[in-house]
């Protein structure tokens, strides 16, 4: 039977790739586009419009990050790349005429980091890539002493300009733009408040079609490369209805981003943790925020672990443990997180681990898991004296089971509270998460489980309509008590993620819509 099953699946997969579009489909689309031509939005992304030169830099072991399939071509400094063809550059005030970047460029890194590969792409203002490559030499550091400034000087001849700056290994990518005024060079980074390894020098030489005077140029430096519209949110935590955090990732660059609001979602501040995936965020009563960061490829630019943000706005990594979920009780002292199984096994714990703290995160200790050989998929610090743990596993026939246990912070003894075995927990699928507030009201959700609500600490669950009553895929939820809280929910109709709040689980208020970063399907 197994062989027949596998054969059927293989045939099915082969058949998926075997279909051919009916003749004329492409022509039909083309015809429709011609009819739609006048409806096409005229707005061109400022990101593209402003960029005469765009350099994307990747450090350390970074794979080539410039878009486009296939390996990057080797730079050909002696072969000028054709000038940008799409939208004309603004008239230059220079008597020498409008400087036009021809794309003949070189990139250098300082000798102190000779092994750090740097990847660069040069794009014209239409976004088309006109050159790409990696640094092949290690000339001197041309960066200024001020890490937040650019040094602009004459290049190798009167038609070239050297732009230097001091970066860090956290700068997985950066963007260098020559603004449309032809005189402003802007270097932009994603926010990186956790980075503590500043000091790598970079320089890039821009070659122009006409002589240029470095004194006429002005450099700007900013950490604004990532905006809220770039973020795909997936985790949420609110201290109160106005003050909260949303975490997510930028799909294209892979930046781990945290967004803070203090006005209920009306405005947001963007902060970053380098690259990686945020696994959870939490807020304690002291206004301290926490985040779990996971990395597919841990390294200098992605350091998995538990991060804490102090009230001065600085993020720092406080544990190399890799939290899967985070939870703090109402007071700031009692908290816990669940570690990834792989890391838990490294420090000698018997399987996936639960860490608890009683002092606001200064010290953590492991407690026994109730899940045995199965995974702890989530755990909640309901109160200082109460912990819930959700286990998941598969039976011999492949059925998925989930069990919910309750314990004191020592993890002993664990008491079975609800399970899928007896139907007291009607859930299925993966990505099951739970959050229960101190008053024993809370939520349960997952990839195939619409939002469920409890009012008895998790012993019984009932489905909860969200907003318009549609079944929604809840990405994350933060129960605040009284049946209320905050959720992130994917809305396919609006191609975005809604931030919704409720006081009682009945009436919902939309606080924000995070549009899909690709701005799909306008």
């Amino acid at each position, binding site marked *: 039977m197994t062989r027949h099953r596998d054969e059927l699946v293989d045939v099915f997969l082969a058949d*998926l790739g075997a*279909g051919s579009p009916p003749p004329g*489909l492409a022509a039909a689309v083309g015809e429709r586009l011609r009819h739609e031509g006048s409806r096409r939005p005229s707005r061109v992304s400022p990101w593209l419009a402003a960029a005469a030169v765009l350099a994307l830099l990747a450090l350390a072991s970074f794979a080539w990050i410039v*878009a486009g399939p296939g390996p990057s071509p080797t730079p050909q400094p002696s072969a000028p790349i054709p000038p940008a063809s799409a939208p004309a550059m603004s008239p230059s005030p220079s008597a020498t005429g409008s400087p036009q970047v021809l794309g003949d460029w070189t990139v250098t890194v300082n000798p102190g980091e000779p092994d750090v590969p740097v990847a660069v792409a040069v794009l014209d203002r239409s976004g088309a890539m006109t050159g790409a490559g990696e640094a092949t030499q290690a000339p001197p550091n041309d960066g200024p002493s001020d890490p937040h400034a650019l040094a602009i000087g004459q290049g190798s001849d009167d038609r070239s300009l050297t732009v230097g700056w001091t970066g860090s290994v956290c700068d997985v990518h950066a963007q260098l733009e020559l603004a449309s005024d032809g005189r402003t060079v802007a270097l932009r980074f994603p926010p990186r408040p956790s980075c503590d390894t500043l000091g790598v020098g970079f320089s890039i030489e821009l070659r122009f079609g006409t002589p240029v005077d470095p004194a006429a140029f002005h450099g700007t430096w900013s950490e604004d490369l990532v905006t809220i519209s770039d973020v795909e949110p997936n985790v949420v935590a609110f201290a109160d209805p106005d003050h909260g955090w949303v975490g997510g990732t930028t799909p294209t660059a*892979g930046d781990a981003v945290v967004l803070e609001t203090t006005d209920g979602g009306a405005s947001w501040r963007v902060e970053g943790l380098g690259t990686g995936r945020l696994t959870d965020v939490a807020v304690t009563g002291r206004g301290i925020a926490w985040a779990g960061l996971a990395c597919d490829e841990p390294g200098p630019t992605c350091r998995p672990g538990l991060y804490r943000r102090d009230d001065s706005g600085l993020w720092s990594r406080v544990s190399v443990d890799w939290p899967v979920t985070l939870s703090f009780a109402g007071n700031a002292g009692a908290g816990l997180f669940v570690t990834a199984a792989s890391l838990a096994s490294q420090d000698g714990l018997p399987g996936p681990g639960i860490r608890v703290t009683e002092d606001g995160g200064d010290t953590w200790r492991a407690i026994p898991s109730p899940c045995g050989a199965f995974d702890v998929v989530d755990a909640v610090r309901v109160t200082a004296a109460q912990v819930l743990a959700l286990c998941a596993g598969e039976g011999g026939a492949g059925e998925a089971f989930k069990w919910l246990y309750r314990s004191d912070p020592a993890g002993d003894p664990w008491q079975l509270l609800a399970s899928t075995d007896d139907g007291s927990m009607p859930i299925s699928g993966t990505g099951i998460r739970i959050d229960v507030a101190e008053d024993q009201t809370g939520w349960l959700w997952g990839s195939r489980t619409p939002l469920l609500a409890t009012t008895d600490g998790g012993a019984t669950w009932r489905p909860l309509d969200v907003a318009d009553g549609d079944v929604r895929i809840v990405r994350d939820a933060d129960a605040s008590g009284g049946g209320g809280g905050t959720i992130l929910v994917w809305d*396919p109709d609006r191609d975005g993620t809604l931030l919704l709040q409720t006081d009682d689980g009945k009436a919902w208020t939309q606080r924000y819509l995070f549009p899909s970063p*690709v701005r799909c*399907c306008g």
Partner: protein
Amino acid sequence: MDAFEALVESQTASVYRLARAYVGDAGAPDLAQEVLVAAWRALPGLRDAGAFGPWLHRIAVNRCRSAVRGTGRIREIPMDEGVASGTPDRGHDGFAAVEARAVVGPAFRRLGEDHRALIALHYAAGLSIRECGETLGIAEGTAKSRLNAALEALRRDVGRIEP
């Protein structure tokens, strides 16, 4: 528009097969057309022209998901409809493909959204693992492990329901 049409020409087959994986033969042409027109309208929002492929396929996946959820304008047409209607198989291997659609198709539709998208992107649209990751905004290693998990889930589900 000429450049976009050229891109459309090059991507039509891939988008069509992706749509076919989600809604079957009968619904795929309309859905593919919807995707390509949606991409045209959304083109000003594309920041990185070099990322056109992942961007387009992400739009396609989103549209396909909407279609099978019934939230889009395209009704869901099961992929195994060819069995019920007697539509001749256009797949690669005659009756075997029809049988596979009938048995595996329902299990494919029961997969989680991410798993279904990965299988559709890789096997139907023909994207590499890296391109699948770029499309879904996940790392290549993650895409690979999730695809393996998706295939495992598919085989397990088929094994469970197979007579």
